[in-house]
């Protein structure tokens, strides 16, 4: 395995941050401290962390309704993200956005999105802007399997392919769009076929294996940076929690959940690092408790932060 210890620690820790962050949000939702909805990313950590880890800081991403993981992976600050989810004034979007709208433009995160497919056009346009401005940046556009049935998915892929835009379209296939399986929603189960219509190169990989994600995304990132155009990657993965708080998960089996949890991206990667003698078990435990403290601090910060002032209602509408 060609990975330096420092890098391995970074990747493992980022995945742990996402997992513990999401577990904490779940707890806050259950206690009604966090209100509204939150679509949790637990189980899919290897996709966001793997893909974003091969980007430059000035590269862009667009995110989804399941956006906490992307935001954390794209250098998001845990306290600000947590505060945003609680709607606090100290949140990354001043409490105006919430879980569904985490964005951090200073880190190249062009935003989560409450609308399925809502960010595909934005990613395409950011790719166009890169081309027009003549920079070496690129865009990774995250979206779910469900979004591939939206018109804008097809419109965007066509436009990006025609104009050879530097966008990596990254589909997180967690087998379901809310309660409807890919099998029941899509005429093709192999989603890479959808890129064929636009002559866009595509690949299907194991999204639970962070090294596989890194390897493949790096390949298509290089391709885009070389001016060769867009690509489409499908990462197979699984969301551990229900779609949202009220989801009774009647559409999937406990066996299926067990199967995927048996391929947990954090445990898999940790094991590999121990096997290859890059990290010791003790070190991994140490990382876990480090992250635990970070999440506790972020939570404390968020809970103690004030709500926005009433005047904020009309602020930031126009420049």
């Amino acid at each position: 395995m060609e990975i330096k210890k420092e890098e391995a620690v970074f990747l493992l820790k980022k995945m742990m941050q996402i997992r513990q962050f999401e577990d904490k949000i779940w707890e806050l939702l259950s206690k009604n401290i966090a209100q509204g909805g939150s679509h949790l990313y637990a189980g899919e950590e290897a996709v966001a962390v793997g893909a974003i880890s091969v980007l430059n800081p000035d590269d862009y991403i667009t995110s989804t309704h399941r956006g906490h993981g992307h935001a954390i992976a794209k250098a998001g600050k845990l306290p600000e993200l947590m505060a945003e989810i609680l709607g606090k004034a100290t949140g990354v979007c001043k409490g105006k956005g919430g879980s569904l709208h985490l964005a951090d433009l200073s880190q190249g995160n062009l935003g989560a999105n409450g609308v399925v497919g809502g960010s595909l056009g934005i990613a395409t346009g950011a790719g166009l802007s890169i081309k027009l401005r003549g920079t070496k940046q690129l865009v990774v556009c995250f979206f779910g399997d469900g979004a591939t049935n939206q018109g804008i998915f097809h419109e965007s892929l066509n436009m990006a392919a025609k104009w050879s835009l530097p966008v990596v379209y990254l589909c997180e296939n967690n087998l379901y769009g809310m309660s409807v399986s890919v099998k029941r929603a899509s005429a093709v189960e192999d989603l890479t076929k959808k890129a064929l219509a636009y002559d866009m190169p595509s690949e299907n990989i194991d999204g639970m294996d962070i090294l596989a994600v890194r390897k493949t995304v790096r390949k298509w990132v290089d391709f885009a940076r070389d001016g060769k155009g867009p690509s489409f990657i499908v990462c197979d993965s699984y969301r551990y929690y229900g779609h949202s708080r009220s989801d009774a998960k009647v559409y999937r089996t406990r066996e299926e959940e067990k199967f995927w949890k048996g391929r947990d991206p954090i445990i898999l990667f940790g094991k590999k690092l121990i096997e290859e003698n890059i990290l010791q078990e003790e070190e991994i435990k140490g990382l876990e408790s480090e992250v635990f403290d970070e999440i506790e601090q972020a939570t404390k910060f968020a809970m103690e932060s004030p709500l926005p002032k009433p005047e904020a209602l009309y602020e930031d509408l126009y420049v």
Partner: protein
Amino acid sequence: MREITYRQALNEALVEEMERDERVFLMGEDVGPYGGAYGVSKGLIEKFGEERVRDTAISEAAIIGAGLGAAMTGMRPIVEIMYIDFIGICMGQINNQVAKVRYMFGGKTKVPLVIRTEGGTGRTLGAHHSQSLESWFIHIPGIKVVMPATPYDAKGLLKTSIRDDNPILFIEHKMLYNRKGEVPESEYLVPVGEAEVKREGSGVTLITYSQMLFYCLEAAEELEKQGISVEIIDLRTLLPLDIQTIVESVKKTNRAIIVEEDCKTGGTGAEIGMQIMENAFDHLDAPIKRVAGADVPMPKSPNLEKLAIPSKEDIIKAVKEILGK
């Protein structure tokens, strides 16, 4: 009389109409085994099967377009758009196709289509899941816009809407699904296009619909204790507007306030207020008032969200102002 929730009332309407007419079917995202995002279609797929209770892909434009095509060719579809916030994706289908085909084709087709959706504020879900977009649709001749507030009206109006040969946008409210109210066991219908006086009074007329009805009722209770008598009209249908009922009330109270959850500018109140001007100007003793939502995208923060829509206090204040108290 028995009391059931708004959710249950809608569910009963769907079941009864699907049993009554086999051309009626339901299609939308997660309407099958999941039972709909707000649980309205629970149990339907078990009763009617996958052919008539169809889970679709996340493809709003095709959901509406396909609903229209089916309606023009002999079926009576009920299609669901999970949140009205997503309706922009299929706006072209609604505005240019659903609402216009009958007129454009010289009356040679009918569109017995119900578009069920849900809107409104109250769950701190932020800007993409909290909007009140009804005013967009009252600007489209060719569809009807129905917005029930009570379980009784929800059931009666959904049944009538399904039997109507015109396309109907049926907008439920996310904060009303758990609300209980009296609903008879025996069959009844509520006509589309008729408002109802939900509370009689003499001092001022509050014209409202959907969730805001309950805010108005609470405000009226409190005002009554202070000796102020308020009449409340629940529009129930926004298009066509039952201006007659409004005018009759204004003739009696001589004052009108429109209470609406949507953004004030270009909102439903603008149209209603103007129609009152056109039809009852001589009976007005004071300028018409609006108590409406703030002209901003819905913020996430719970405190800002509350500020962004009318409160009971806002209504009370407006009533006192219009009465000069």
